[in-house]
Each structure stands twice: as C-alpha cells, then as structure tokens.
C-alpha cells in the first residue's frame, strides 16, 4: 500500500474524534475521543517516519503516548472529583466557568 492510504485513515480517525468531542456530553467519552485524535496523529507521525526512513517520527509518537497517558490521568482524576461531589457527570451541566 502506498503511504497516502495510511494518511487518509489517519485523517478519517481524526475527524471521527472531532465529531465525538462535539456530539457526546459524558466527559469520559470526550476523553476517549481525545485519545482517538491523538492516535490519528500518532499514525500520521509513524507514516512520515516510514516515508523518510528515520526514527524521529516514532520517537515523537512515543512522546505523544506519554502526553496522552498524563492527560488521561489528570482527566480521570477530575472526573472522580466531580462524581465525589455528586455533581452531574455531564459537560453541559458543568458550566460554572462560563461566567
């Protein structure tokens, strides 16, 4: 397969993630959709690494995995804190910061 196909798959997965973040209201599922977008970026990075024959893109993909793990940790901590305070786990209800 030519490498353009991989980039097309990456683009499709990224836009599915964008749609999920906009449509869903459960913060857990929003975090899952963020993971989708990060993984689409990873796929593009690994594809470019293959395209140019250097490992730099793979290193970048591993760093993105670390960042995704950190994001998951903090995001899930926030969700646990929300549910401890008996607030609704719904991003439309949690709009205190709107001002």
């Amino acid at each position, binding site marked *: *397969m*030519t*490498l*353009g*196909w*991989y*980039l*097309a*798959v990456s*683009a*499709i*997965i*990224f*836009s*599915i*993630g*964008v*749609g*999920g973040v*906009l*449509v*869903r*209201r459960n913060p*857990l*599922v929003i975090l*899952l959709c963020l*993971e*989708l977008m990060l*993984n689409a970026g*990873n*796929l593009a990075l*690994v*594809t470019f690494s*293959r*395209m140019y*024959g250097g*490992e*730099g893109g*793979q*290193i970048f*993909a*591993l*760093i993105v*995995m*670390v*960042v*995704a*793990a*950190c994001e*998951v*940790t*903090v995001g*899930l*901590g*926030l969700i*646990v*804190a929300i549910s*401890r305070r008996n607030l609704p*786990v719904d991003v*439309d209800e949690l709009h205190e910061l709107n001002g």
Partner: protein
Amino acid sequence: MSEVLFFIAAIAAIVGAVGVVAMRNPFYAVLALVCHLVSLAALFLLLRAEFVAAAQVVVYAGAVMVLYVFVVAYVGGAEEIRSGNAMRVLGPLFAVAVAIELCIALLGSALSGINSQGAAYKPGFGEPARIGKLFLTDYLFAFEVASLLLLVAAIGAIVLARRRRGLEDDDGSIARVIGERRPSYTGTMAEGAGTRQVYQEIEAGHGGSFEIGSAEPKERAAAVVASEDGEDGA
C-alpha cells in the same frame, strides 16, 4: 498480503473509532477503543514500527484502558438522550468538514513520498535498541521533559482525586484503636507508645484501679481522648 492486512486493520480501526463515538454505554465505548488501539498497532507493524506497536498494545491497550475501565465502573451510568441540542446536528457536519479539509490538504501536499512504499528499508529500522539510543542521545531533552510530565501528572491526579472532608467516620480513628480490648502487659504498641501512662493517670483520677479491658471500648476511648485534650489544654 500487506494490502489485505492493511484493509483489515484500517477497517477495524475506523469501526472501533465509530464505536467509541456511537456507543451509549461508556463501558462499551472503552471496549471499542481497545479494538481500535489493537488494530492501530497492526498498522504500526505494517509501517515497520515494531517498538511503537508493542508500546501501543502494552501501555495503551493494557494500562491506560484498565484505568478507564476502573473509572467507568466508579462513575458509571449511560447518558440520556436529550432532544433539541444543536450540537447533535452541527457536530457531525463539522467533523465531515474537517475530514474533507484534511483530504484536500493530503491531495494538495506535494509530498514526494506519498505515492511510494516509503524509504528503502534499513536493517534494524524501528528496533528497540535504536529507539533507546536515540532517546538517550538526540532526543534526551524530550525524554527528560516526558519523565517530569509524568511526575507532575501523577501528583496532580493524587491531589485531584483525594478525599477532602478529612475523617468523616470514627472507624479507623486513633481513639478507636486505643480503646480496643486487649490483655494487659502483653507488650502491645499502646504500652510502648505510652498510652499506659494515660491509663495510670485515669486510675489516679478515679482513685481506684482501672483494669485494662474492663470498661466498654467506646467509653474508654472517650475517656482517653478527653484526658489527652486536658493535657493539651494544660
């Protein structure tokens, strides 16, 4: 052969991604994401990124998803459908627009390698040894920053998810531990830590003998705490 594998993995990845968005129950969404991640690891293998594929399966599909499953089990609950939400119409439209725009960017990009099978394969490309060497030489700064970021995230998660109310119930508190029924002069920690002195003071105050284990635990604990408070006040 690689074409067949590519199409199987790509279709599984896209179906998994759609499942994450479409599943009503967050638990099934997490399982769909696991399917998506595993098929993405297959795509990485086709791109000769063996170490990234292994890390994807072990770290992502293993550790991170277990974390998700725990939190889904803790929070739980499927979301109810609410009508009249403008985002339910605008969101998919925007997603389609982003997809079209990305495809235009892909077709319009003058990348020389986009219609090729990639650079010539070098032996050892994407091996753990080379990744590790690059991490400790060319990309050392990124490596160190990543470790610092992990530390910050771990501390942040503990601070965010800790219990804020302090001791809500009496169970496990100091007073209950001290007041527990135990035989005297058996070398318990309470004797070693000097709570025996407290009992002796109580005895002196009563003017009689205060047998350890004679009073009810709750009352004794209350008496001990009261006498300690008195010492602090004095």
